[in-house]
């Protein structure tokens, strides 16, 4: 009986030591992973910042103006080119009402019962 207990205790001792070691090893791995992810996040943020700065440089009004003058035939907007909604003429009413062929087909076949609507029972 005592021998069995001894063996059991020694076995659990070895097992406990191995378990603790494994936990420590795993936690070290996770910490390293977290640090690596933090580093990756930082690098991504830096890359985003660099790209935003590059976009602003390309979107610079002076550069766009120079390119527009060189390649496009656009001219500056004059005040007479703006209109207000109040100045728009109202829509003219149609002499002949427009014919919609698809609506005509739909109305003609009268689909009161579709696949999902069952016909009323007893009617």
């Amino acid at each position: 009986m005592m021998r069995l207990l001894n063996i059991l205790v020694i076995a659990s001792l070895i097992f406990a030591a191995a378990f603790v070691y494994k936990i420590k090893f795993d936690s070290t791995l996770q910490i390293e992973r977290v640090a690596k992810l933090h580093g990756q996040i930082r690098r991504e943020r830096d890359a985003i910042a660099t790209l935003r700065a590059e976009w602003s440089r390309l979107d610079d009004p002076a550069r766009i103006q120079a390119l527009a003058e060189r390649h496009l035939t656009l001219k500056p907007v004059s005040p007479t080119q703006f209109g207000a909604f109040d100045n728009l003429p109202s829509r003219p009413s149609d002499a002949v009402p427009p014919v919609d062929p698809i609506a005509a087909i739909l109305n003609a076949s009268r689909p009161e019962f579709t696949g999902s609507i069952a016909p009323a029972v007893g009617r």
Partner: protein
Amino acid sequence: MAFSSTVKPAQARWQRVMHALLYGNDVDRTVKAKARLILVVVGFSIIYSVIAARLVMFAVASDGHGARRTVSQDAVATARPDILDRNGRILATDVKTPSLFAEPRKLIDPDEAEELLTAVLPDLDRKELRERLTSRRGFVWLKREITPKQQQEIHRLGIPGIGFLTENKRVYPNGPIVSHELGIVNIDNQGIAGIEKWIDGQGLAALHMAGLATDRLQRPVDLALDLRVQFALRDELAKAREKFKAKAAAGVVLNVNTGEITALASEPDYDPNNPREANDPTRINRLTTGVYEMGSTFKVLTVAMALDSGKATLNSTFDARQPLHYGRFAIHDYEPKHRFLSVPEIFTFSSNIGAARMALAVGVEGHKAFLKKMGQLDRLRTELPESAEPLVPKHWGELNTVTIAFGHGLSVAPLQAAMGIAATVNGGLLIKPTFLKRSPQEAQAIAKRVLKPETSLDMRYLMRLNAEKGTATFANVKGYYVGGKTGTAEKVVNGHYSKHKLLTDFMAILPADKPRYLLLIMLDEPQPLPETHGFATAGWNAGPTAAKVIARIAPLLDIEPRFDMPKADQLLLVSAKESTRETR
């Protein structure tokens, strides 16, 4: 027996305890050994159970230390917040760049290192580099902010004792378009001018000292600036400076209802990416750090003062038949009319005599108090750390009042004058200009009432009248109902006013019936041209420049073109009639 039972138990108890502990000479050896083993087993199992309990506790309770691990390779220079314009476009941002350092103690061969490095970085000073590499210090910078390509090449050289640290470099993607307002930073990313310096003063410097400002997770700074308007203004100022061969050109677009500075440009300026040019004294921000006699644009304030005090109405007339003599000085008009002039005529003809008589009607003390109320006699402090004190005459008598009435004798910063004139047209509220975004509610909260609303209405129509038939007709852009006032000031050279060195400026409000923006254009020493018929006054150079700027920026500022507005005369008659009806 009772007696023996009380004495014996004490002794027997002690003996029994000793027996139980197996402490004694007469206890069986094997029993003792067994008991000792059991004791040891119990002791260790207690210890292990404590460890197991702690393990369970650690597993159940989440770990509280979420402290971010800062890698030692991280930035040394402060990370600064981005600066954005009012539409969210980036004006200034940080970019990570590598910087080269050396640890001279770990260098094996300084000569080889020096040769290899100067091959890759040819602009390094050889003597200085040699000095640094042979010194016995632990850490020394070799070159800060090198390009990634250079970093790769130096890395491939494989010199021991050389390393890289990433630093934050401040880049201004728009170059010189926004220069004075943004300011510049030094190599350690500390602001030394402009809004950059203001950001430092807001607590970034304290954060940096505490070592907490190395990351880029800071809220960006929103400016009131509109980059497109700024570009249009600066572009036109550069063209005007070239066309009129002026020494300098400056302009500001001010939102009169909120005090926001939508655009501010002063040519010549610098590229904040090359801060070396910023030290040049000709490249100052003339709108905040220079003081000038603004000339006839000051008449706006004089007329507003006279109307507001009740000493004059739109129908009042003043004697402009002869030059006004004061001691040995005589005030002349630029285009003398030799008759009595009404207030609108004084404004549209820009009569110095009329303005002087209006100021004298108010009196010296009243004039001084009014200008102080309008913020023209004190230094204007904005977010920019640079500001200038106005030059106020020490002894202010009637002659000073007479000259200050038409803008000579008092030198103010142009932004100050713009603030005062904005107050005359926005309903009578003086609002301090700001470079940061400000909502109308915040502006109302800090606004100070300086004029009656009726005075403001009169001033708006006077400025519109001036644009229709006065000196500001060149700025009358069709469709935008512009109002304006020109100003031509003679500059002081060697103690005398010089007839050939002029400072011309122009104040435009748009739209004139309900002004939203004030535009100030200032040209320093514009030259007469054949197409201006030999004249160099403001109506010929600052006015047309303002017209070009307004044509470009009005669509950007959401100002609707209207072609059916009534003439200012008709509106003035109505308001003059109302004022005479009241006085009757």
